[in-house]
Every structure is written in C-alpha cells, then in structure tokens.
C-alpha cells in the first residue's frame, strides 16, 4: 500500500529525514516510536504534503501512485488521513459545514453525487457516537474552545467520516487523560478493516496497549534504526531509547 524509499526531507534548509525506508501493507498497524526531535512529525507532515517541508531525495509510492506529486487535498481524497498532533482552531467555520465540504469533495473525486442533507446528518450522528463526541461540539466552530481531549476525539471523528485507507495518528495520545485515551483508541480500533492500514506515531508505549501494532519502528536522527514486533515497544518502555542510540551510533 505504502512504500517509502530513501526519503530525505527538511524544513528551512535543515535536513531532518535522512533516508527513510518503510513498507506498510494493507491490514497492518505500524508504530513509529522515537525520542523527541527524531523526525516523527516531519515524516507525517511530508506524507500528507505540508508545504512547509521540502523533500530533497527519495520517493513515496502509495497505491501505485507517486504520492509526492499529489496536492494535499488529492492525498486526502486518495484515502490518506492525518490525525494532527495539534489540531487547528478555525473560528467561524462550523464542524458541520467543514465536514459536509470535505465529504462532498471526496464524493466528487470518486464520481459520486453529493450526500443529501438528511443522509449527512445521519452520518454525522453515527460517526460521532464512535468517539462519544457531543452533539454540541459538532455544531461549534472547528476545534474552537475544545479541550485537548475533545480535539483529539474530533480528529478521530473526522477520520470516521472520511474512512481513510491509510490513517496516520501523530501523537494522538499526547495530552489525553486515560478516559479520552480509551475512547480515542477504541474509536481507531472500530475503524480498522483488513483493507486499510494505520501508522501510529507515538512517544510512549501507553497508546499501544490499546492499539496493537504489528510492527514497531524506532526513528532516530532521521533514520529508522530498528524494526521489530510489538515486543520492541515494551522493551523501549523498560529500557528507554539510549541503548538503541548507542547501537545506532556504533
């Protein structure tokens, strides 16, 4: 589904990703872990086409297409979704209008007719319940005045609405209390199918107790320095990252 080959990228002329290689197949959950500043968020930003980041080398093949040539909106319509680490507040744009616009753009791309008002509200209701998001929040402006937990739940709600093929969760657990964490993780698990895949970017093992990864990668200094099964996450939890850093530097 996704193949990243020797990806180099940076911001403001500073190279952050220094040759990433990663393959994700459908049905899989990959966890990308690593200390602060290792390039985790840069990787997710590059995958969704954030214009602040420049790719200098390498390629990304997604569903047989050259992903890096697609605009951010086309990547979304092709089924890529990023749950933002810091969801943006947009005063004056209501969640309803935002989601209606997004869903209809996805429909248009697939050659489907726009969704009717009643069907849309039904869809909203149904997907909202997945992350126990209050009806009142759905009527408000995008993320405006939402608590940290509400913002993250709102991300997963949007994911439920858009039904992505590849979901990237960027530090979705940060700033979450234990109840919100459970709700968010349960939501993500409900959305899993044998046809889609998930990349979970996280600092801690905590989220992985709820969302079970098939593969765990450790990103350090712009490179993946170790790839193993889910047991790696537990090991990191116990031993920290230092032993890997030493290993990598040797």
């Amino acid at each position, binding site marked *: 589904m996704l193949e990243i080959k020797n990806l180099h990228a940076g911001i403001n002329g500073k190279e952050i990703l220094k040759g990433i290689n990663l393959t994700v197949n459908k049905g899989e959950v990959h966890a990308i872990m690593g200390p602060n500043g290792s390039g985790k968020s840069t990787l997710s930003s590059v995958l969704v086409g954030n214009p602040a980041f420049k790719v200098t080398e390498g390629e990304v093949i997604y569903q047989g297409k050259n992903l890096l040539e697609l*605009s951010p*909106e086309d990547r*979304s*319509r092709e089924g890529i979704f990023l749950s933002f680490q810091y969801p943006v507040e947009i*005063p*004056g*744009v209501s969640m309803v*209008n*935002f989601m209606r*616009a997004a869903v209809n753009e996805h429909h248009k791309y697939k050659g489907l007719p726009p969704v009717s008002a009643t069907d849309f509200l039904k869809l909203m209701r149904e997907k909202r319940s997945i992350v126990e998001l209050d009806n009142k929040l759905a009527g408000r402006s995008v993320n405006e005045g939402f608590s940290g937990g509400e913002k993250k739940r709102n991300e997963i709600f949007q994911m439920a609405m858009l039904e992505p093929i590849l979901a990237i969760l960027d530090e979705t657990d940060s700033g979450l209390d234990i109840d919100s964490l459970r709700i968010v993780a349960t939501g993500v698990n409900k959305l899993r199918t044998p046809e889609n895949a998930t990349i979970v970017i996280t600092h801690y093992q905590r989220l992985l107790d709820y969302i079970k990864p098939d593969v765990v990668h450790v990103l350090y200094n712009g490179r993946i320095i170790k790839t193993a099964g889910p047991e790696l996450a537990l090991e990191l939890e116990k031993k920290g990252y230092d032993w890997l850093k030493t290993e990598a530097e040797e």
Partner: protein
Amino acid sequence: MKAEQQYIDLFTQYEDLIRQHSSAVLNAPRKQALEDFERLGFPSVKGEDYKYTDVGQAFAFNYGINLKRIDIPVNPYDVFRCDVPHLSTSLYFVVNDTFYEKRLPNVDLPEGVYIGGLKTFTELYPDVAERYYGKATSSNKDGIIALNTMLAQDGFVVYVPRDIVVKRPIQLIQIFRSDVDTMANRRVLVIMEPHSQAKLLVCDHSIDDVKFISTEVIEVFAGEGAFFDYYDLEESTESTTRFTSLHVKQEASSNVLVNGITLNNGLSRNNYYIELNGEYAESTLCGMSILDREQQVDTYTHITHAAPHCTSNELFKNVLNDHSTGVFSGRILVKEGAEKTAAFQSNRNLCATRESRMYSKPQLEIYADDVKCSHGMTTGQIDEAALFYLQSRGIPQEEARMMLSIAFTADVVDNIRLDGLKERLHNLVEKRFRGELAHCAGCRGCQ
C-alpha cells in the same frame, strides 16, 4: 477651489428651482450651508481625516443633478423583487434622490408612525421636522455635509412616536437609475421617540453602468429607552462613489445597532458619528467590506461618550483582494464625567494579495477616570495552518481559502439582530466570495 466652484455656481444659478421643488424645512438651512461650503470646501487629502480619499477629485467630474425632479421612468417594483425568505419587510424606494411615492407598501402601521418621503413629511409635520432636520449634525461640520444640505430636496423618514413598537422591519432600497452620469443628494431622518422600537435596512444599488456619486446624511435620534437597528448594505458598481455621514444621538438607556456592510462598490467613504448623551445608553457599531479590483472603502468612526455608564462596542472587518484599499480610522472620545464608560473597538483585516492596502488608525481620547476601554487592530493574511488543515481533509485550496474568508467576516454578520436578514447575509457574503455577485445583481441577488 476648482471642484467646489461648479457646485457653488450651480446652486447660485438654480437656487429658486431647488427651493421650488422642495419644502420650507429643507430650504431653511440652504443659505447657511452655502456659506459653510464656500468656507470649508471639500476636505483635503492633506488633512488627517481624508488622507486616503481624494474628495475633490471625486466631485470634480461633471454629474447631472435632477433639480427639477423629473420623473425617472422606472418602476422599482419591476426591477427589484426583494422577497426575502423569512424576512418580510415594509418596502420603500428612493430612486436617485427622490422618494418613490407612486406605490407604497400595503402595511398597517401603528397609529402616529410615519414612514415615507422626507419632503412630504416636512409638509405634514413641519414642527417635528424642523425640530430634528439637520440637528444631529450641521453643515459647518464638513464640506460634504454642507454640499448635501445645499442640494438635498427629498429623502426618507422613519418617525416612531413614544412607546410604539414597529414590529415589521422597514426596508429602504435606494437605487441609482440613469442614462447619464448622475449625482444624488440623499437624506435619511430617523426619529425614535422615547421607548419606541424599529429596525431599518437600507440597501444601495446601482442599476446602470454610468458614473454615479451620492452624498448622504443620515440622522438618527434615539430617545430615552428607544431601540433602533440600522443595517446598511451597499451592493453598487465599480463606477459608483458614495459619501455617507451617519449621525446618531442617543439618550439614556437607548440601544442602537449600526451595521454597515459593503459587498460591492466603487469608492465609498462612510462616516459614523455616534453620541451617547444619556446614562446607560448602549451602542453597537460594526461593519465589514469585501473588496477586490480597485475598490476602496474608507471608514471613519467617531464615538463620543458624553454620559456615565454607557457602553459602545465597535467591530470593523475588511477582506481585501487584488488592488483594493481599505481605510479604518476609529476615534473614541470619553468626555469628562463619563465615568463607568465601557468602550471597545476592534478592527481586523485580511489582505489576500500583496497589492491590496489597508490603513488603520485607532484613536482613544479619555478624559474620565473610571473607564474600561480597549482597542485592537490586526492586518494579516489567511492563516496557513488553518488552510492546510482544511486541505488535508480533501478541500481544494481555493475552496479552503474561501471558507476561511467567509469565516473571517462571520462575526460581523452574526451581529445582525434580525434572523432572516442574518441568514440572507451569510448567504450573500458567500455568493460574493464565490464571485456570483461580481456585479450588482439588484435585489435579485437577495433571493
């Protein structure tokens, strides 16, 4: 004095004609107005208040004025069907600067209420008219007001006696209709006696592509405990220039809302003078403009707190595209003794292109000790993070930009206290951003 001279000559030559086609109350201040105009002239770009709008140049052109009050062959009811869903209004028309008397709306107005032409009003109620006409402002205030007072022959009046509530919103459509370049000198007089209530929506339209220029003086008297809403919607053309001067005098516990929205125009200079003269009076003054091409809106506001315990809230927003220009100059004056004043001013602007220009100048002048005042100004671009967020959900960049521009102006529209109008304006603003209102659509655009 080049631009001024043609108006002085015109007045001197046609004074009798002007008087003949007007009324005694309107004629009374003309002489003084001429003197004031000769002395003041048009405001100069060298002065601080008109730095960005060349008034003399705007008036230098040779416009026709309908001094003889010749009937304009237009039936406004044919041109406009402003049948707004959820907003049924009592609809009146001013064609250029003449009140359209031929067909008036079929409404049962509460007893004593007068809504209609200014000339007729001054003839029917000369005492009331004399007490209020030209009393919220004066021709010695600035040259454009003086010129308007010299030449105005008719206008529109809302007169609501004490304790009366006019439930049905009043709508005045002022249209420019002419085959030749034309000037209109418009007046609106609103008299709200104590504890009366009314809402007025004024829509400015131009239905021909010739050059138009208007001067307009709007006077609003809000008596003790009166409630009044004034919505001003300009949807004219690039070849339309307008100079409006709104003067509101508020007595104790009165509540006045002014919301001026420019959806399409050429050059507009809108002056707002609000005086809070009685305790616990409340004023909301807001407005917005959506500008592109070479359009310009120059907003000047002056709120005077002359009594204690009054509140004013001011919010102006501009969205600027292409080579457009926005100006905001907002002055708040808190006079000595106006303790417990609460005055808030905010001006926010979105410059979507490098070539667009926004000039903003807030001014606070406070001579009382116990007051709460604030002002804030920002001018910036579309928030890139928000833009990317919308795009990352599949919304095309152009669409996302539009959504953010619409959102930017949403709070000004939300200030509207008439639900049907609020809805309609949200809709119109969206159409404007989508380029569906590129030309004045008349009120057909409102449907």
